[in-house]
């Protein structure tokens, strides 16, 4: 155990976490240049394209230190987005130390802080790394100042590095060995292993990623998940090298995997404790909670024939994503579909993109919603995350919506613009804190509904990318809520209905009308688009008809060509949704979700 180190890299998005992980892996020689694929820990295409890690991952690095001893360094990667902060916390709970990566040009950002706090909560040894020192815009002095003043860390403990150029890598590895404490715990105690991730393997079922704190586990053991007391027989345990590497046993202090015939990742809870059926540990490891989705939207196939395909794909997708939930839903306008719950908007984006890319589905997404709480006249309390289930307004006594506390960091010059945005988003109870010269930390309480609408895009835009943002849920607060519907030529498009704050309804309706006007192609007749609350029209736009499209000549030699052209158009039309007599393309549904200034 003396020769094991468990650590994570934490960083604000784009501060170079994946690149550093790659360098550490290369340096320790787990893989050679030939089979090296950039950013190994980010397995999915989407992760590589977006440059963020969606799900965590782990790898064991053998390292011969300068002191002549061999070590196993377990690098546990963490997801880099606010939607997945609970997963981050479970990964951190599996470590004794972290590398806190800070971009030499950008300095400390909101997630740097949020992650640092998480690491501090777990009493982890923190090694600040100033990355990207090769950049012309690097300002190491300023970052050192921030480490001192904003993070409250000793700037002398930092290491300068450029993961891209490979500088500082050995120093980092030495610091991991020297400064991060070895794990404690005893192999003789009853088994206590923390689940920090789970992946689905079509041949083996669920691969449980865990950190063993006490005791040990081997093939043949009967293990128990403490949150629901389900038991499984262990088939295999091992370490993560580039592939899984089978081992006799996983012991206290080690990080590795367990395969135990668990069918889907949904049977496993991140943060749960694994123990032995026969000799259980007295209590689970601390920090477990069940993550609940906060953003909800319905997914419909564009062609109703594809419903079964969609159902199959969701089932398959769900195998690997325990935090995604779904159930059947149906829409008068869009037919059969599914109501889905997500951890946040990024999570929603990822699910949508993977369904389209990996499962080749064309889908329509309804406007995302948070979960509202309504108290009715008769005292009943309803949670509503689907505008279709909006209660009869006459029966509502009180409506409430979830609030979050948003923490934002930015250069001082953007303060005005951000405050304006937060006010527009109904932010309240602001507090402000100068964390360093010219840098401000701003905090607001805001309705989650405003945040999921287009806050993040606009925040990035008004801070020109220099602002960073993090949030956590706080409570439900009373709010004046209304149901806003969109009508196309008089037909209600229920997938576009939204529950909104009364004061925001008109602006939202206008935006939706404008977006639809831009996206719905002209048709042979005029199309009226209206936003309404109940029977009252609050916004409208009109798409004029096109009036001439016919080809002048159509004789014997033209018919086949013309038919082929029409067949193509017809196929395009099939990918649109008919609402009454109007064909609405998928892009129109998506456009309604987009922010003002894309």
């Amino acid at each position: 155990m003396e020769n094991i180190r468990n650590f994570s890299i934490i960083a604000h998005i784009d501060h170079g976490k994946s690149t550093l992980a790659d360098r550490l892996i290369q340096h320790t020689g787990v893989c050679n240049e030939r089979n090296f694929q950039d950013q190994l820990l980010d397995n999915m295409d989407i992760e590589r394209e977006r440059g963020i890690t969606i799900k965590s991952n782990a790898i064991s690095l053998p390292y011969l230190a300068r002191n002549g001893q061999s070590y196993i360094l377990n690098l546990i990667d963490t997801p880099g987005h606010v939607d997945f902060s609970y997963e981050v916390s479970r990964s951190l709970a599996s470590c004794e130390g972290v590398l806190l990566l800070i971009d030499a040009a950008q300095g400390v950002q909101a997630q740097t802080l949020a992650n640092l706090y998480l690491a501090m909560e777990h009493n982890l040894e923190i090694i600040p790394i100033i990355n990207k020192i090769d950049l012309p815009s690097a300002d190491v002095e300023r970052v050192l100042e921030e480490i001192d003043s904003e993070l409250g860390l000793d700037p002398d403990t930092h290491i300068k590095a450029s993961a891209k150029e490979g500088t500082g890598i050995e120093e980092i590895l030495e610091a991991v060995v020297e400064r991060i404490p070895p794990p404690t715990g005893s192999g003789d105690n009853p088994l206590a292993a923390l689940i920090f991730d789970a992946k689905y393997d079509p041949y083996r079922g669920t691969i449980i990623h865990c950190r063993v704190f006490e005791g040990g586990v081997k093939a043949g053991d009967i293990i128990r998940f403490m949150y629901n007391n389900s038991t499984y027989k262990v088939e295999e345990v091992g370490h993560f090298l580039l592939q899984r590497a089978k081992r006799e046993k996983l012991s206290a202090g080690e990080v590795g995997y367990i395969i135990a015939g668990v069918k889907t990742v949904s049977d496993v809870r991140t943060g749960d404790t694994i123990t032995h059926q026969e000799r259980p540990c007295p209590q689970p490891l601390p920090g477990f909670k069940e993550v609940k989705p906060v953003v909800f939207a319905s997914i419909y196939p564009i062609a109703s024939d594809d419903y079964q395909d969609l159902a199959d794909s969701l089932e398959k997708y769900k195998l690997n994503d325990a935090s995604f939930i779904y159930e059947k839903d149906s829409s008068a306008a869009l037919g059969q579909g599914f109501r889905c719950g997500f951890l946040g908007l990024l999570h929603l984006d990822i699910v949508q993109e993977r369904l389209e890319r990996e499962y080749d589905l064309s889908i329509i997404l309804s406007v995302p919603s948070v979960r509202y709480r309504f108290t009715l006249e008769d005292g009943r309390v309803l949670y509503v995350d689907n505008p279709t289930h909006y209660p009869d307004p006459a029966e509502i006594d009180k409506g409430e919506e979830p609030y979050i506390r948003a923490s934002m960091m930015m250069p001082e010059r953007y303060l005005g613009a951000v405050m304006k945005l937060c006010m527009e988003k109904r932010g309240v109870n602001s507090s402000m804190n100068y964390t360093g010269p010219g840098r401000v930390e701003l905090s607001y309480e805001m309705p989650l509904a405003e945040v999921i609408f287009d806050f993040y895009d606009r925040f990035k835009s008004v801070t020109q990318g220099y602002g960073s943002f993090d949030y956590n849920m706080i409570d439900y607060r009373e709010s004046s809520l209304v149901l806003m519907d969109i009508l196309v030529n008089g037909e209600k498009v229920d997938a576009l209905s939204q529950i909104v704050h009364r004061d925001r309804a008109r602006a939202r309706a206008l935006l939706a009308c404008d977006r639809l006007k831009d996206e719905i192609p002209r048709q042979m007749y005029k199309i009226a688009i209206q936003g309404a609350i109940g029977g009252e029209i609050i916004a409208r736009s009109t798409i004029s008809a096109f009036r001439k499209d016919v080809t002048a000549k159509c004789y014997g030699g033209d018919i086949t060509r013309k038919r082929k052209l029409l067949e193509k158009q017809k196929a395009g039309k099939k990918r649109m949704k008919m609402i009454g007599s109007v064909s609405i393309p998928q892009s129109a549904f998506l456009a309604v979700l987009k922010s003002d200034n894309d």
Partner: protein
Amino acid sequence: MIKNEQAGLYIHVPFCLSKCGYCSFYSVVSPDLIPDFVKAVVREMAFYKPSFVPFKGFDTIYLGGGTPSLLSAKQLDDLLTAARHYFRFDDPGSNHPLRHTGEYPEGHKCRYPENIEITMEVNPGDVSKNYLRDLKAAGVNRLNIGVQSFDDRILKFLGRRHSAKEALAAIDEARNAGFQNIGLDLIYGVSGQDIRLWLKTLEQALSFAPEHLSCYQLSLEEKTPLYKQYSKESLQLPAENEALDFFMNTSKILTDAGLIHYEVSNFARSDSLKSRHNMKYWRHAPYLGLGPAAHSFLDSRRWWNKADVKAYLNEVGGGKKPVDKSESLSAEQLALEALFLSMRTNDGIHLQQYKNRFGADLLVGKKQVIDELMENGLLELKDGRLQPTLAGMAVADSLALM
């Protein structure tokens, strides 16, 4: 709809003295090949004699091009005589179908029944008094004159080799030669063409009291010289509103003058003066196309010849049908064609016939859209037919996708 209709015979004469910039029909500037071509078409007729047997015989012949008026009167006569020999031409007015004799004696001439429509496209630059007289003697009873415009600047822009004056003279000559069914082709919407100039052209055309008028909006077909010229000189076709103006005004002036606007671009003095041959294309009637690039249709099959005179001559010379490709249309494809073709015509589509043919009731399946289209004045329901209004005809392609 298909079986009960008589077939049309189309002969594509793929020769021109010069190419017009806008034209995308297949033709070559090598008139020296015409004699071989005529022989080959006659051989091609022989290939189809046993296989192309429409239920009710043929009742139209159409010589299109290219420039059919590059054929000598003798060559034309050879083609018509051969066609008369190889195919069955029923007189639609007669209960006694005529049968060909099986012999084809040299120099023997057999006449066509009077009601067979035999159309020939002619270039105004090619018609002399004698030539017209000989065409008539050979059996041609309908002339389609490629006037295009009465404005020399536009004629030049389009690349026509005749002048406005020649066009006027050609129409007079045709009348003098005794042709009682004359159609004029005109083009509008040329870059920079003022609508008033176009209406003047129309008035001029009307002064000849033609039995038939085809008024085509200029379209830029890819690979034509004009297409390249438009993109190079960034010339523009009329915008949608302007194009609609041209279309609506053309229709108004011609219908006011007593013509029937029976297809997007076609007008006839009376029902019987509609182009019977062209109607076959829009009604899915059978037709046999001979000559390079010609298209044929029978039952649910369509095929077309190689668009290459030399290849055509070689194939036919080698005793083979010069077919380039063929397609068998699925019911779905036929239904789509039936819709977009019929929406081009004022007759529209017969709902019961459509139902019999495709097993689908349009009024049921597309009710909401059809209602909307009727409310918006694009469709009408009349005598069991769903018909495009004038505004509907202007968007006929989209109506087909209703």
